[in-house]
């Protein structure tokens, strides 16, 4: 297992190098002169020349790649074309909001989803199965950004219960929590549906398996079988899905942050896209990607802990 973990971890390095190359080469896809595009209507020859210098846009491609990689290695993601702030400090301000949102929504969704699915499978005749069906239908039918819009319509406009915009006053935990309710719900509701259905199905499979029958034949109580024996097997698919889902979650966060005006990473990226502030876009995407890559890594490693049979080729 240790070998698997080492190999899996080392594989991150070439992947991240590839990610950097793609991010870097995105500037090449831009039709026309990058500097004038980034500066937009403000572009004067002096400003363009200045930007070209600053971003080494006037140098040959390999040299620019070298500068870029070197910068990233030093933790320098460049400066915002628009505001002149360091990209890294912009991200440092935005990131906590996104991480808080992601952890709250996914964490709660995973907890509820897995429990709901397990209950539904263990008590086949109970109405919990119906709840799972409703949630999974909702999760399929209402994508996160539509959910965000509808929730806002319902709880901020029609019945004004909850705040619509912002992330709450810094330091005021209650305010932050209140501001988190709607975005986290919008982001998490699909996950509840998906994970509960997934866990229900895999739990049913496991409960039908030979080794559960063996345990029953030895009078191991049903409760112990379900929550101790079967759950560990049944949760395996959910782990992979959650790991891969972090990418989707970060994508969904973009919309939710825009809709609820939360100053997170997603909003930072989209606002930078609107402003054609390319260094910020690049840096923001890089950080989001690194988050995703490491979430996947953690999922794969915990997978290895749950399932001892794992081998890595």
């Amino acid at each position, binding site marked *: 297992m240790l070998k698997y973990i080492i190999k899996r971890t080392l594989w991150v390095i070439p992947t991240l190098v590839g990610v950097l190359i793609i991010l870097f080469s995105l500037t090449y896809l831009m039709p026309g002169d990058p500097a004038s595009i980034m500066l937009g209507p403000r572009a004067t020859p002096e400003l363009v020349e200045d930007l070209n210098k600053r971003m080494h846009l006037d140098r040959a491609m390999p040299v620019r790649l070298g500068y870029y990689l070197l910068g990233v290695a030093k933790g320098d993601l460049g400066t915002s074309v628009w505001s002149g702030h360091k990209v890294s400090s912009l991200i440092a301000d935005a990131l906590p909001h996104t991480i808080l949102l992601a952890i709250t929504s996914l964490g709660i969704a995973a907890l509820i989803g897995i429990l709901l699915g397990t209950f539904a499978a263990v008590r086949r005749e109970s109405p919990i199965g119906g709840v799972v069906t409703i949630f999974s239908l909702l999760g399929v039918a209402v994508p996160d950004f539509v959910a965000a819009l509808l929730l806002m319509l319902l709880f901020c406009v029609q019945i004004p219960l909850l705040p619509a915009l912002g992330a709450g006053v810094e330091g005021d935990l209650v305010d932050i929590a209140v501001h988190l309710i709607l975005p986290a719900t919008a982001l998490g509701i699909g996950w509840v549906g998906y994970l509960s259905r997934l866990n229900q199905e895999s739990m049913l499979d496991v409960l*039908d398996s*030979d*080794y559960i029958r*063996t345990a029953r034949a030895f*009078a191991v109580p049903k409760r112990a079988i379900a929550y101790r024996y079967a759950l560990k*097997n049944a949760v395996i698919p959910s782990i992979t899905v959650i790991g891969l889902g972090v990418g989707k979650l970060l994508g969904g966060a973009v919309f939710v942050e825009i809709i609820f005006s939360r100053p997170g990473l997603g909003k930072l990226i989209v606002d930078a896209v609107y402003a054609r502030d390319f260094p910020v876009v690049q840096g923001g995407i890089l950080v989001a990607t690194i988050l995703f890559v490491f979430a996947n890594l953690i999922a794969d490693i915990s997978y290895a802990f749950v399932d*001892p049979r794992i081998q890595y080729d």
Partner: protein
Amino acid sequence: MSEPLLEVSQLTLDYNLGSRKMRALDRVSFSLDKGQVLGVAGESGCGKSTLGLAIIRLLPKVAEIRRGEIVFDGRDLLKLSEAQMDREIRGQKIAMIFQNPQNALNPVFKIETQMIDILRVQDKYQNPGNRKRRQDFRQQAIERLKGTGIADPAVRVSNYPFEFSGGMKQRVMIGMALSSGTSLLLADEATTALDVTIEAQINRLITELAAEYGTSILYITHNLGVLSEMADRIMIMYAGRIFEMGWTKSVLGSPRHPYSTALLESLPGRQTRGKRLLSIPGFVPPLDRLPGGCSFHPRCPFAEEVCRQEVPPLIEVDKGHWSACLFDQKRGRQKWKWI
């Protein structure tokens, strides 16, 4: 005089699969004496595995017992509550080992974890109030493994199932199943998936441990050869019914039912090279489309009109030898010789 440990009478069981209803067991009656080995033989789909699961009451939800009794040690198991089954029967007096050792153990837990759990459950029911430490159970698990001939049990106990070969997994199962309290062991195709030399080892282990603890065995298999060597009595099933039952020597030596006769003749065991094997025409009917009368009649060359109409009763045709064939019962064996 031996006394019966298990008496099954008129056991009838259906599987309800949506619109389809399959009669998996039809008026199955037999008894098993203390210390005896009863072999249950038949082709796939004859209901032999269902019988084992019915006795230990682990049938799938779609199964419904229509009528019958399973009297074990003087009590009807079908009348016991789930809690009573767990407390007194399962894993205590009746143990079961299954066909596929690859899947019989939980792949994500160590052997010791699984064994300790089971030992703890057994201990809880046997000596309530007397709390033992995990270390004691672990020691007990190691001893059980040692008893089944696993080398290095103290090390192997902390392995995962995938690090064990099929034969060793089956040893673990036997170690968990057989203890001094076990009075009945249900073995469902326990050695089918194993190699011949390993199969011989495992069957010997089962026989020896059962003899040591005075355990009776219901040995379910499709391998008549294994039964010939292990079983005291044999029961041959077809499409949910018992066709023939009796002492091993008489059932295998002088079978009375055309089906059992054909089954024995179709084995390439002692036939000489080049001689044709007997093959039964047709195939085992699916349980939801059983023919009326004797369910074997479409494949039986001796079938007469009466076989299509009447279900043949299981009748004692010889001392301790039962058979369910109308033709045999009415005209005698001479009339229907296959060969």
